[in-house]
């Protein structure tokens, strides 16, 4: 990463919508579906540019995902979005059967994942979607951490023949990567190299926390590698195993239940390929609740301090 990294935060939802507009300018097959959350997704710019290719289905997520399946069967490449809780929990069978089992090409998007739901609180706070989606055979599941990787990975998802699930943080996020950085689905990114412990994180909330944790660890004399595991499925097995040989253990960092998310995926890779200590930072068998992002980070122990403490625990053995 030689190029300069932009310093101004960018609204992730705007990046998402602008990327779709750009894709749609080059492909008549790109269409979008919303379930009365077009304002939240900022896809109004897409609707304005391509009104005939934007479908607001109303508050009916199951119907939206089923319609996306039909559009896909017509050769279209539909991006269907709703809050994470509705995109995953509410429309799961429709996505599972009508889209995935049917072998179609639907790009499902869940916005405001985990504690990003903030003031919408527990009813809207989804800590389960990575687990649900990881269980769908062949599905690509990814969660970009910054505007640059988001734009690149949405392009990769559009080019991928098959269903994908994007966990989309909507709010302003400061870029981590320089413009033009290349990304591949299923290939994690080493953000910082290190020789003692590896912090593996996913998403716009946890990757910055992991980077901050690595700084703290450095001041404690610990050399921590940080990996942005933007694709949770298929997980980058080679990269995990490389760092299993290179460092003494791992901390997984996810804005999600520790069950069946990133940490579980890593445990599966490590147990089968190269057993190493792993400690998981994430939601520990709890429901969501209302609050600010900072409150929720502290409440659910999703902070750089907790990650650093867990890294020390890994190294103590």
């Amino acid at each position: 990463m030689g190029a300069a990294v932009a310093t101004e935060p960018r609204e992730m939802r705007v990046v998402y919508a602008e990327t779709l507009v750009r894709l749609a300018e080059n492909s008549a097959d790109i269409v979008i579906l919303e379930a009365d959350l077009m304002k939240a997704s900022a896809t109004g710019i897409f609707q304005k540019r391509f009104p005939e290719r934007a479908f607001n289905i109303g508050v009916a997520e199951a119907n939206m995902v089923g319609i996306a399946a039909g559009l896909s069967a017509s050769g279209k490449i539909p991006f269907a979005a709703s809050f994470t809780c509705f995109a995953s929990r509410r429309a799961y069978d429709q996505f599972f059967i009508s889209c995935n089992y049917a072998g179609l090409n639907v790009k499902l998007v869940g916005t405001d994942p985990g504690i990003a739901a903030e003031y919408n609180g527990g009813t809207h706070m989804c800590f389960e979607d990575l687990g649900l989606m990881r269980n769908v055979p062949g599905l690509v599941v990814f969660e970009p951490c910054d505007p640059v990787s988001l734009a690149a990975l949405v392009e990769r998802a559009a080019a991928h023949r098959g269903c994908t699930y994007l966990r989309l943080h909507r709010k302003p996020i400061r870029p981590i990567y320089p413009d033009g950085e290349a990304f591949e689905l299923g290939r994690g990114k080493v953000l910082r190299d290190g020789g003692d412990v590896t912090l593996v994180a996913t998403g716009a909330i946890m990757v910055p926390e992991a980077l901050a944790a690595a700084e703290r660890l450095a001041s404690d004399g610990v050399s921590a590698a940080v990996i942005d595991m933007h694709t949770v499925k298929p997980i980058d097995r080679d990269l995990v195993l490389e760092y299993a040989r290179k460092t003494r253990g791992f901390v997984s960092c996810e804005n999600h239940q520790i069950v069946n998310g990133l940490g579980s995926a890593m445990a599966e890779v490590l147990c089968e390929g190269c057993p190493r200590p792993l400690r998981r930072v994430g939601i520990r068998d709890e429901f969501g609740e209302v609050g600010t992002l900072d409150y929720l980070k502290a409440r659910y122990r999703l902070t750089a301090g907790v990650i650093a403490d867990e890294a020390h625990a890994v190294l103590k053995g």
Partner: protein
Amino acid sequence: MIGEGELRELKRKAREVRVLTLDALGHLGVGHVGGALSVVEVLTILYYRHMRVDPSAPRMAGRDKLVLSKGHAGPALYSVLADKGFFPREWLRTLNQGGTSLPSHCDMRRTPGIDMTTGSLGQGVSASIGLALGNRLNGDAGTVFLIIGDGESNEGQVWEGAMCAAHYRLGNLIGFMDYNHMQIDGYTRDIMDIEAPEDKWAAFGWFAQRVDGHDFRALDAAIERAKAETSRPSMIVMDTVKGKGAYFAEDNVGNHNMKVDEAMAAEAIRRLMGEAL
């Protein structure tokens, strides 16, 4: 208007579809007899009179498409598709055997001529809307046909789709509701009464009709009227008999998914062949 000769031919085809379906189910020993046999006439009139399809090019652009949302009626559709030449008739006796291309519920990845995977009830309604919207975007003049069940209509997704298809004025979508008055656990009036379905569809903004689903001329007239409606979707509620044409299934409320041995199938086929067309 269907002439006498064509009417006779449609009836002959419907009988053949029933025979093939009963043979496949009897060979297997169990299956969704009731709901397969109640849609035979609508499948027959669609594939032998109305739908533009090409068995040698099952994915042909511009074709008419069918979403059999009550996917458990797959065996009846397979009989039609085999007779049309989408795949060899010998496949029919592989129904539900391991490795088959003909699973109990419709699977677009496995079966030539199947336009949408169905089986999780309600989902075909939304898929048909997507197909109809896709046709509109693609400038494709094909019609999307949809068949739903009466029990299936307990699903909320059916009514999400009902509202949506009317909103998008999908004149290229023609639905049928197979109102055979039975669902798995009993009569629809006892389990979840849906009467009067045509009023419900009309209230949602569809062009709704109600006809005898075993009467080819009534079905044909309804389909022609539906085709003439270009600015709203159509729903043709068909009063049907669940298990129609199988002596052991008609009037048997347990006919949704039932055992059928080869002797029962053979006797049902013998009786069907003995009936005047």
